[in-house]
């Protein structure tokens, strides 16, 4: 299907049309932070942005989600399952790395016989309408993870920013249908397409970090108690910034809240992270990941060893959020380089 053009001044019109049928989430400037929030007016959308601070996973995997509620009536307990959400969502302006993170999230929530209905239902009803990254940040390293600032495979509709207009390419069937319905869109000209390709190349060249990530799996398995982990985790304070704001982190905690004065309660799930001491604490009081060494190791291993083993995909999309937001500047790129270095040394000794 042919690419279309939408002018930036037409965005409010687009929003108006899409919000008739869908709930639209778009980047919004909330007190200086870019976040994907529900938008009803095209003027609220922040089109000039690098990437959001809170990843868009929040829309399909919220910080806090009620699984069911119950009411108590004497000895009887009645459970009300949370209603199946049939709202259709569109995430406008999602970046390619975050769109890829949705693939990773699906792997986790749809693994084997364990299906997470809450997540999968929301995911099924969510359409990704992404924009390529014209100016990747200096912490971005998606190209090292088979990603690309203009990767469109994971989206339904892909757009390229050409200053005053977007080139719109429908990718999936749903995307094609939506574009078909927007009959007022004009066809893209040859020169626009050429410009888009040019921008894509330019963006790729702007990514300065290259990491060899593929090779590190073996090392991560065999050298579980290498002193390098202590070096890496030494300054870690154990806050959850890196994992809470990671687009691929999926851990959650299930908690029960009871409102005993009104005879009711609810079970909910909230974000959790392996960086907290409570995360792996057993009822007996034993904690297998007692110090930051084990916790930091778990975070890295989970993304670069367990994910590849279980799902054949690397659990990182290279968005660079953890690098930007770490309070002690514990840089993931530096960590990976250190690990690669050690691995090379290992290999040499084996050969010798």
């Amino acid at each position, binding site marked *: 299907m042919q690419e279309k053009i939408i002018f930036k001044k037409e965005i409010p019109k687009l929003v108006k049309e899409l919000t008739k049928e869908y709930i639209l989430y778009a980047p919004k400037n909330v007190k200086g932070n870019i976040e994907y929030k529900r938008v009803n007016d095209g003027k609220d959308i922040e089109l000039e942005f690098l990437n959001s601070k809170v990843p868009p996973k929040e829309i399909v995997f919220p910080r806090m989600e009620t699984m069911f*509620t119950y009411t108590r009536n004497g000895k009887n307990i009645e459970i009300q399952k949370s209603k199946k959400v049939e709202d259709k969502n569109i995430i406008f302006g999602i970046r390619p790395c975050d769109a890829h993170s949705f693939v990773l999230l699906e792997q986790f929530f749809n693994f084997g016989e364990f299906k997470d209905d809450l997540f999968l239902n929301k995911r099924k009803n969510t359409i990704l309408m992404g924009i390529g990254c014209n100016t990747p940040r200096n912490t971005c390293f998606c190209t090292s993870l088979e990603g690309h600032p203009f990767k469109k495979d994971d989206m339904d509709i892909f757009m390229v920013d050409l200053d005053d207009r977007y080139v719109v390419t429908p990718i999936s069937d749903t995307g094609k249908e939506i574009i078909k319905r927007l009959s007022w869109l004009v066809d893209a000209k040859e020169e626009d397409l050429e410009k888009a390709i040019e921008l894509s190349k330019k963006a790729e060249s702007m990514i300065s970090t290259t990491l060899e990530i593929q090779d590190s799996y073996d090392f991560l398995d065999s050298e579980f108690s290498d002193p390098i982990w202590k070096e890496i985790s030494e300054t870690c304070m154990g806050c959850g910034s890196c994992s809470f704001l990671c687009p691929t982190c999926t851990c959650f905690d299930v908690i029960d*809240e009871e409102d*005993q*004065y009104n005879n*009711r309660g609810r079970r909910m799930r909230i974000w959790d992270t392996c960086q907290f001491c409570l995360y792996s604490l057993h009822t007996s009081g034993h904690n297998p990941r007692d110090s930051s060494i084990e916790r930091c190791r778990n975070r890295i291993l989970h993304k670069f060893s367990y994910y590849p083993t279980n799902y054949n995909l690397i659990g990182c999309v290279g968005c660079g959020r953890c690098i930007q937001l770490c309070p002690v500047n514990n840089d993931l790129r530096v960590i990976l380089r250190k690990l690669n270095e050690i691995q090379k040394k290992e290999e040499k000794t084996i050969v010798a």
Partner: protein
Amino acid sequence: MNEVITEKAQKEDWEPKIIAFLCNWCSYAGADLAGVSRIQYPSNIRIVRVPCSGRLNPFFIIRSLVDGWDGVLVSGCHPGDCHYISGNLVARRRFAILNDLLEFFGIEPGRVNFMWASAAEGERFAVLVRKTTEIVKKLGPNEKFKKQW
């Protein structure tokens, strides 16, 4: 906004529920004395007996507000009379800070009240409970910490 609530509350005959933490050695006995002496005080308070006002963790007070109590009353021995010598003096410092901080976060002054009453002051206990009830009644229901279910 409070006035709206109060109006509505008065219409519907709303009565506040107040949780009272009373020290075992003084105020609890004071409340008892008030009862024995047939001094009437409002039935809005529900009493929790604690070994000393110093036993009160500020958590108890905040948690009470979260749980939806409209008011909190804490009563201990007069300074110098503590059964454990200094429990109420330590508690006083804690309460001072807690009170200021609650106010700073926008909890109406008067939601949480502190008082001293000895075992011999049944009359004083009744008067202060009456006063507390009046204050809390005026403030209306405690809805700030209400969760969205």
